[in-house]
């Protein structure tokens, strides 16, 4: 038997020291993941509140659940290539896989229930880079911050007692986030269009275009429709899928087009506040035409497995410091992970 190197007390002290290092790292790891800090807003919380509002629909997106896939191409006229070196803006064409949707987490909702529609696009550049963008048919975002968005979802959840949102909760939300009044004012006078084809879709968040000389330009973008606006007809109000039916009917007659209009910020415009529209007199550049030619039912369409993460950007387009962008990216990823798993189970996974 070897003579012990330490007394019992020394040994205990050393063992404690040995345990301290991994225990400290494990605590730090748990804290990093948000487990030790239940107050912290996480991607999981954002997704679960959306799920509470829209109901559970395994295999579907947690928001903008009802939609349809579209394919086509973007024909660039080269005008935006001075601001951005992304190859999508060089003269030429880029294939596009997109998705029209309505807001909300219920894939069975009637189309007229959601006055705000969305268009998401994936541009596949020849160099392997992609530009993904999720745009909405409203001029600005309801709130300026991630916390504001989360609190809005919580404040508008139906009260279990009445089945309706509690007006007191909404009132206290508005006091805390008064910027939403602007959005309410817009929503009040907004007349929903009769077609996805005649809506204007806006990036809402600001981004940065990076040119050949590495200069940044703060921008937002919009898809401006060629199709003429018409309000929803009485006949359409009786059709829960009128948007999809209208889209198919229009595409059977020919492609649908939008101009990609880039708005360049002035020095006084902020990239951090998506709840404020930039003044109408800002410089705009028509970068080219989006041409959509085919619609495919989403469940079997090419857009179903695409996560339209607004931070998947090619060289030449970069994130701004808008705090909503990271939150959208994190929440979309969470929703994507959940639904791809559910879809795989529903399909009886081949693997």
């Amino acid at each position, binding site marked *: 038997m070897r003579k012990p190197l330490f007394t019992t007390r020394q040994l205990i002290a*050393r063992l404690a*020291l040995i345990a301290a290092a991994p225990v400290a790292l494990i605590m730090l790891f748990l804290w990093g993941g948000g487990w030790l800090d239940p107050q912290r807003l996480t991607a999981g919380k954002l997704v679960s509140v959306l799920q509470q509002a829209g109901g559970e629909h395994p295999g579907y997106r947690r928001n903008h659940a009802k939609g349809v896939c579209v394919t086509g191409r973007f024909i660039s006229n080269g005008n935006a290539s001075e601001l951005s070196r992304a190859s999508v803006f060089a003269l030429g064409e880029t294939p596009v896989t997109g998705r029209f949707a309505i807001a909300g987490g219920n894939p069975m909702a009637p189309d007229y229930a959601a006055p705000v529609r969305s268009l998401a696009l994936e541009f596949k550049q020849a160099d392997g880079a992609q530009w993904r963008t999720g745009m909405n048919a409203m001029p600005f975002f309801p709130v300026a911050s991630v916390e504001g968005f989360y609190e809005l979802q919580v404040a508008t959840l139906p009260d279990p007692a009445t089945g309706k949102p509690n007006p007191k909760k909404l009132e206290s939300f508005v006091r805390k986030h008064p910027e939403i009044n602007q959005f309410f004012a817009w929503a009040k006078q907004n007349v929903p269009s009769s077609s996805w084809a005649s809506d204007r879709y806006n990036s809402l968040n600001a981004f940065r275009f990076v040119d050949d000389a590495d200069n940044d330009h703060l921008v937002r973008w919009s898809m401006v429709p060629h199709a003429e606006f018409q309000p929803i007809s009485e006949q359409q109000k009786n059709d829960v899928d009128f948007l999809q039916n209208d889209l198919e009917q229009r595409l059977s007659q020919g492609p649908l087009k939008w101009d990609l209009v880039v708005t360049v910020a002035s020095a006084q415009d902020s990239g951090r506040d998506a709840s404020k529209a930039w003044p109408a007199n800002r410089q705009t550049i028509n970068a080219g035409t989006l041409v959509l030619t085919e619609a495919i039912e989403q469940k079997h369409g090419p857009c179903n*497995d695409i996560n339209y993460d607004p931070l998947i950007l090619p060289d030449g387009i970069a994130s701004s410091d808008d705090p909503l962008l990271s939150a959208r990216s994190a929440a979309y990823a969470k929703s994507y992970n959940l639904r*791809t798993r559910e879809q795989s189970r529903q399909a009886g996974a081949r693997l």
Partner: protein
Amino acid sequence: MKQVAYFHPVLRCVHWLMATAILIMLFIGVVMVSTVSSLHHLLIAIHKPLGIMILVLVIVRLWLRFVTDTPPLPDSLPGWQRAMAHLSHWALYAMMLAQPLIGWAMLSAAGYPAALGGTLILPPIAPVDNDWYAILRPLHSVVALALFFTVMLHLAAALFHALVLRDGVFESMTGSGDDD
């Protein structure tokens, strides 16, 4: 085989470089998937190139491990500890190699470009496929947790050798000595 007391100096250097990189990587991973702050974007931008760096380093390291002499474990070590040491080392190598590949394949299956920054984009190594993604994405988390757990065990064992056993095992990786 030559009897050596230390790992090859380059191997020692790669070990500590990887130890730092992997710990940083595990923390980046756990924070980036949970946070909704602007850290999310920054951490994702670091995660991918750092993961590829770890993949390159582990390949270099495995090659060095096979071509250089390694110090034997001391005779004083009981058989079960010897077995644990070997098992945990090969588990660590396997996970260090598999984890970046799973991450890369997972991006491929989702149709995401494996962008390392600037114009550098890696080619896909798996088909764009929902079922593959549905397996690879949770697997990436499971391996991350298993790797973190094994690294913690490895750290505790190393400290045990350094502070209690004092049998030269810890020094074989930290020592500045050169056998040549």
